[in-house]
């Protein structure tokens, strides 16, 4: 009964937005159910509070942004952005404000229209200190959102910056005021109503069973046309191995991470195949620049740049990469992932040379003792290396590094701790070495958070307490330059300076190989999220299975 009706709606919608060809949707071959095996439940699904990757994947499906960033993730000005909720925008002549015209066809999933006041409400939620949104600091440059009329929202900025447009369009996600404003802002984190999320994206939320399942269904009345799939279900599994098993037995259709050793089993599977995902993360073994627990005293061992460079030179990064990833690894090139817009493959990092490493350690005063381990003034070259239990890759690297250090005469004790402890100790600086992964946002501004002096302490993520004024200035110039070429040049100099200071051993770019059912045709995969183009994912009509034929009907009561 419902199917013909939805087709009717879809065809009307298709006729109405005939000019919209950004994504071809709403054709008769629509349908299918995709089950995603996910390790870990989102912490929260309301955009101001979305802070983990599981949450971001669901957010990409349920919510729509004012404008979508281009595939190259350019964040300077508005080049490459596609209109979404905002069908057009106008820059003020002095660039201190941008007026966004909301698409009059845009509707929230409960049917009410999307209005400018929703944008203003979202801004309040993102920036209100009582809620403490982790995504608020990204909007620091926005002074206010003004409602000029019901469908025009004007964003006023504190100063001109290359990422002005990106800050509003990409980071400020509108949420429906009429649903939430009866709640006090600080209650949003725990209130039940805040879990019934209402968005305007291609899918709408059906049910969220915490730690078990999240189900979203196609929004057939969507102004951009309905997505090709009927339904996506995120099913929580205990670990990546079980997830892979479920995909191989067709219990699930997609799992984001395949353990590197098992990628080859996908080649021989008739049901699933490997799908490499790009990501914006990179992993390194970082040296704490300060003594543990102190904010000023240099680290007794790693305060000396010779030790850091020697240890960087003394490990065979390529061999470790091969051991852990097989043929699919990407070697770390510096404090950035190669997928980033300002990445640079010409950065020089210390080359693998054990003889030179040993010589450097000798010259730094660390002499080899009778037991093969080095010591200086009675203090042994011994330190702890911290890594979280949740990352199999980092655990593997920890064991490999431990052995490589042992051959150099350094004794590393591996501390495998759970996530809580890892975060706590790295934030407080209570570690010697830590295997850390950073994920970078598009744009150059994020690097100051990770490698700038301002990022030390509570305001950023500079857990190594690395500080170099020259780097600060260069990163700042990169973030405020309007010229992409200049941005890249500044960034390159900053990166090279960081690499020369050797605050970390650059291990690998986070490369994920997903396992996907062969009947699924994925859309565009972007480094900042594999689910951003979910509206275009589809099922091959010739290979449909039972769960694809259910259609949009509701659950059996």
């Amino acid at each position, binding site marked *: 009964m419902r199917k013909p009706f939805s087709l009717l709606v879809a065809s009307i919608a298709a006729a109405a937005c005939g000019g919209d060809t950004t994504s071809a949707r709403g054709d008769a071959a629509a349908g299918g159910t995709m089950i995603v095996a996910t390790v870990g439940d989102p912490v929260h699904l309301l955009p101001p509070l979305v802070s983990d990757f599981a949450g971001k994947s669901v957010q990409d499906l349920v919510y729509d942004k004012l404008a979508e960033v281009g595939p190259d993730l350019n964040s300077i000005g508005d080049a490459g952005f596609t209109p979404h909720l905002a069908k057009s925008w106008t820059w003020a002549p002095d660039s201190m404000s941008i007026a966004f015209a909301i698409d009059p066809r845009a509707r929230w999933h409960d049917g009410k229209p999307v209005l400018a006041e929703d944008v203003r409400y979202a801004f309040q939620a993102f920036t209100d200190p009582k809620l403490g949104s982790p995504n608020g600091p990204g909007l620091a440059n926005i002074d206010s959102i003004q409602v000029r009329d019901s469908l025009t929202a004007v964003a006023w900025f504190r100063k001109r910056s290359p990422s002005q447009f990106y800050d509003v369009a990409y980071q400020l996600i509108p949420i429906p005021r009429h649903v939430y404003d009866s709640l006090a802002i600080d209650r949003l984190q725990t209130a039940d109503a805040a*879990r019934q999320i209402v968005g305007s994206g291609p899918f709408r939320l059906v*049910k969220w069973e915490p730690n078990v399942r999240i189900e979203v269904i196609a929004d057939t009345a969507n102004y951009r046309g309905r997505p090709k799939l009927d339904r996506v279900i995120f099913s929580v599994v205990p670990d990546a191995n079980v997830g892979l098993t479920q995909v191989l037995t067709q219990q699930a259709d997609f799992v984001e991470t395949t353990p590197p050793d098992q990628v080859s089993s996908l080649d021989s599977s008739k049901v699933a195949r490997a799908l490499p995902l790009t990501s914006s993360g990179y992993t390194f073994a970082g040296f704490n620049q300060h003594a543990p627990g102190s904010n000023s005293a240099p680290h007794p061992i790693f305060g000396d740049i010779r030790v850091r460079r020697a240890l960087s030179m003394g490990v065979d990064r390529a061999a470790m990469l091969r051991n852990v990833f097989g043929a699919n690894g990407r070697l770390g090139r510096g404090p950035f992932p190669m997928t980033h817009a300002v990445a640079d493959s010409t950065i020089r990092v210390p080359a693998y040379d054990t003889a030179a490493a040993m010589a450097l350690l000798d010259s730094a005063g660390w002499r080899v003792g009778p037991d093969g381990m080095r010591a200086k003034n009675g203090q042994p070259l011994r330190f702890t290396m911290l890594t*979280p239990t949740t990352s199999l890759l980092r655990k593997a690297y920890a064991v490999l590094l431990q052995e490589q250090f042992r051959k150099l005469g350094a004794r590393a004790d591996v501390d495998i701790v759970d996530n809580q402890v890892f975060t706590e100790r790295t934030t407080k600086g209570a570690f010697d070495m830590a295997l850390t992964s950073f994920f970078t946002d598009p744009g150059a501004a994020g690097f100051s958070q990770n490698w700038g002096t301002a990022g030390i302490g*509570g305001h950023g993520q500079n857990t190594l307490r690395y500080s170099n004024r020259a780097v600060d200035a260069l990163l700042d110039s990169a973030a405020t330059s309007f010229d992409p070429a200049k941005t890249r040049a500044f960034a390159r100099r900053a990166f090279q300076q960081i690499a020369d200071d050797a605050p970390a051993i650059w291990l690998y770019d986070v490369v994920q190989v997903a396992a996907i059912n062969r009947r699924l045709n994925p859309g565009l995969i972007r480094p900042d999220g594999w689910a951003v183009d979910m509206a275009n994912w589809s099922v091959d009509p010739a290979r449909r299975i039972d*769960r694809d034929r259910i259609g949009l009907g509701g659950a059996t009561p």
Partner: protein
Amino acid sequence: MRRLLLARLAQSLIVVAVVTTVSFFVIRLAPGDPFNYASPRVTEQVREQWRHQFGYDQPLVVQFARYLGSVARGRLGYSFSLHQSVADVLKEALPRTLLLTGLSLALSFAIGIAVGVTQAARRGTWFDRITSGVLLLFYSLPDFWAALMILLLFARWIPIFPAGNMVDAMHDYMPPLRAFWDSLRHLVLPVASLTLLTTASIARYQRAAMLETLPSDFVRTARAKGVSERAILWRHALRTALTPMVTLAGLFLPALLGGALFIEKVYAWPGMGYVAANAIAGRDYDLVVATVIVGSLLVVVGNLLADLLHMAIDPRVRA
């Protein structure tokens, strides 16, 4: 008798109270708090603000007082990792564990007793010896290893059963009969894993108990009176040998709850063990304390019931 009961009840409540208090402080002593997500956006400042907002930066004694106050009003707190009130979480998780452990317990007792009695009937034969050996082997297996092997064997290498979870992702869309079948299929492997080891234990007990009862006077009398061997085994001897089983049942409760921990983790079965393990890892304070309360209540009640039953059945034991 009544005074004894009341005294035991009071003691049990004290036990629960002490255990609760200890767990309250212990989990807060662990480094971390509910907000230590590994997220690229969450900074220490944000965490501090959340901690302050929910009162986790106050002195422990103050927090404890507040917690006691809210428990007195019937509110067990809020779970950050599951975004629900703790009571709601327990309402869903507890029946799931009881289903799993209840089924396993019933099955293992039924099978275990049957095997034990049969072994006693054929003591000394090759059947007895081989069964003893097999039972000893199962009894010696590490439970997590057994669970993993079973999962690998029947869900990956020979995919007959689903790999983990309680129901299929499409469960809500299945017609009622198919949905029931789906739930059953998901039960098989976890129950089998849990039952395997418990059955071995019980069978061994039962055999020993039977062997001890069979030479007794009353059995000899029954045999002299011409009662069939079968009736002797299954009716007379069994009844007496069942007494330690009763105590066993009560004492198995904490063990089963703990053993279910491994099984629930391996199969992602969303019961109390799974919830408790994740709550500890995520420092979900209120949820941890609540699971401890429920767990110790169950155990204490189980012990009490076992003792009462024991006293009721066996008139010789009136401690």
